[in-house]
């Protein structure tokens, strides 16, 4: 047992006080962790989501971002054909997004329709049933919520009605499709009612077939390392279009979230300060309580260095234990908060606000541990500088 061991064991003298302090440190650590996850989590989650199917570049009408407006580009087939001839491009496909309706008994349900090229799409993953085939003009894909709402599954029929005034749509004759599969639309918000069909079918439903319109074109480059140069070249080749790599979109997103990130930094720093103050206060109190013991150790020849180390070790032990509890607490609260925040309308359900990343978490843990340990500096100095004889005299009276 060394002086350091004594210091750490001393924390057990007042179990309730130590437990309360640990709880306080854990809460501060949890908040710090959440803020760290939040500060970089959004952009990480956004980048991961955009790359979920491996498509690194998006082409959209000039001045727009994917699905940011209802703007469309004309001559989608011509653009896609030109892109597919490019040896640097592995796959390219056009996507059209449009509002439409589905018939449920004798009422209409508002839906969002995706026109896709099943051979080159970065929008969905089939969860049950089958995917569409390129020439499948009779099949549709449904999001889970639509399948549940309409009470249908793969092999069943559904009626879809295109872009019409709802009043007119009631009277309009819809077109029947066979459900090929139920899919998870990557960019849908929670509960979004989405359906998909091959692009020409959706263009007809949206009355966008004449101009061969699409909302965007997704591109998969053969070489991940050459995405930047490919995007630059495509900007020159398609000056009428907006060419955005995932990195561009993340940078754009980051810019929009700058205040959000600043807020998380401020709250994170505040929680760090709270943790430090808590540890410093507790250690100062315990040092004052144990001053007699400390000066006795000094009297029998224990060095100032050992006394300082033992107080710092107490701080480190408190920070370590509080931080460990805080990690669990932080991950739990992050999950809970994420469930609330991703429920906001318009946000992709697959989006995550709190993304744990080993590097960031490691840095946060190291910063917490270091600052928490350093919080013991003042009480350690106090302990090491106490006059031995004077304190012993005071203890004796």
């Amino acid at each position, binding site marked *: *047992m*060394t*002086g350091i*061991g*004594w210091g750490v*064991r*001393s924390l*057990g*003298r007042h179990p309730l006080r130590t437990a309360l302090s640990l709880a306080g440190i854990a809460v501060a650590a949890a908040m710090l962790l959440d803020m760290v996850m939040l500060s970089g989590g959004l952009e990480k989650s956004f980048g991961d989501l955009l790359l979920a199917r491996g498509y690194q570049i998006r082409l959209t009408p000039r001045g727009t971002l994917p699905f940011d407006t209802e703007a469309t580009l004309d001559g989608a087939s011509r653009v896609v054909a030109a892109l597919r001839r490019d040896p640097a491009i592995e796959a390219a496909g056009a996507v059209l997004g449009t509002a439409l309706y589905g018939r449920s008994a004798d009422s209409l349900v508002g839906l969002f329709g995706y026109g896709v090229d099943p051979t080159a799409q970065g929008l969905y993953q089939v969860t049950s049933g089958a995917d569409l085939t390129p020439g499948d003009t009779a099949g549709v894909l449904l999001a889970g919520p639509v399948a549940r709402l309409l009470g249908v599954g793969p092999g069943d029929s559904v009626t879809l009605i295109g872009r019409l005034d709802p009043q007119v749509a009631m009277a309009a004759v819809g077109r029947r499709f066979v459900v090929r599969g139920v899919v998870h639309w990557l960019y849908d918000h929670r509960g979004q009612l989405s359906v998909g069909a091959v692009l020409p079918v959706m263009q007809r439903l949206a009355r966008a077939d004449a101009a061969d319109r699409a909302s965007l074109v997704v591109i998969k480059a053969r070489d991940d390392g050459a995405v930047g140069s490919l995007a630059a070249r495509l900007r020159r080749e398609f000056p009428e279009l907006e060419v955005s790599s995932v990195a561009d979109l993340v940078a754009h997103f980051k810019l929009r979230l700058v205040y959000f990130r600043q807020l998380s930094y401020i709250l994170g720093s505040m929680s760090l300060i709270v943790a430090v103050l808590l540890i410093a206060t507790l250690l100062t109190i315990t040092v004052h309580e144990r001053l*007699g*013991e400390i000066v*006795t*150790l*000094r*009297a*029998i*020849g*224990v*060095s*100032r260095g*050992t006394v300082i180390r033992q107080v710092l070790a107490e701080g480190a032990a408190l920070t370590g234990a509080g931080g460990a509890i805080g990690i669990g607490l932080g991950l739990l609260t992050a999950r809970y908060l994420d469930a609330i925040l991703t429920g906001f309308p318009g946000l992709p359900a697959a989006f995550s606000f709190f993304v744990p990343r080993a590097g960031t978490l490691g840095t946060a843990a190291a910063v917490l541990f270091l600052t928490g340990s350093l919080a013991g500096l003042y009480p350690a100095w106090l302990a090491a500088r106490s006059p*031995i*004889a*004077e304190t*012993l*005299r005071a*203890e*004796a009276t």
Partner: protein
Amino acid sequence: MTPPLLQAADLRKDYPMNGETVHALRGVSLRIDPGEYVAIVGPSGSGKSTLLQLLGGIDTPSGGTVELQGTRLDALSDGDLTRLRLTRFGFVFQRFHLLPVLTARENVELPMAEAGMPRGERRARARELLAYVGLEGRTDYRITQLSGGEMQRVAIARALANRPAVLLADEPTGELDMTTGRQILHLFRRLHADGATLVVVTHDERLAAEAGRVVHMLDGAILDRCS
């Protein structure tokens, strides 16, 4: 003539109290030879404990010098003085001043750990010392589980841990009843018989009577010496 083990020359200690200067020691000179058992006696406030603290390098004098085997304590840096206290002095306090969160053995091991003694060696020595003071069955007891007399015996074992040149004890029986005080008295007698140099500040006449020399103090000065 044998050189002194510990020698104080014209020791003075003043300190402020309530705006006035207290002259705790007024020019005390004292020589302690190796193997001596010296008792310092006197009424409260006579400067006994202050003298002991100055002899042990716990406090610094306002004037005069203390030498341990020819080394002037005032010439040492704080670090060297701390090291000297650790290795050359053994301290026993009236209120034991043991660490309650540690066991008896761990308390005894602490100065040895500080001195850098390997774990196995210090563990063995701690057991040996606790056996010497009659606590072989209490080595793993927490301090709070021990009686006052047992605590003081642990404190004596701790003081002996690094084989000090001199053992300084400040009222070692002051907190003990007569029976347990007698046990400490016997222990000191045994220590002396085994060759230890002892300087004991005490009010306890029985303890003083055991000493080879009694130094009487009054008002910060030594009155006389009795053998």
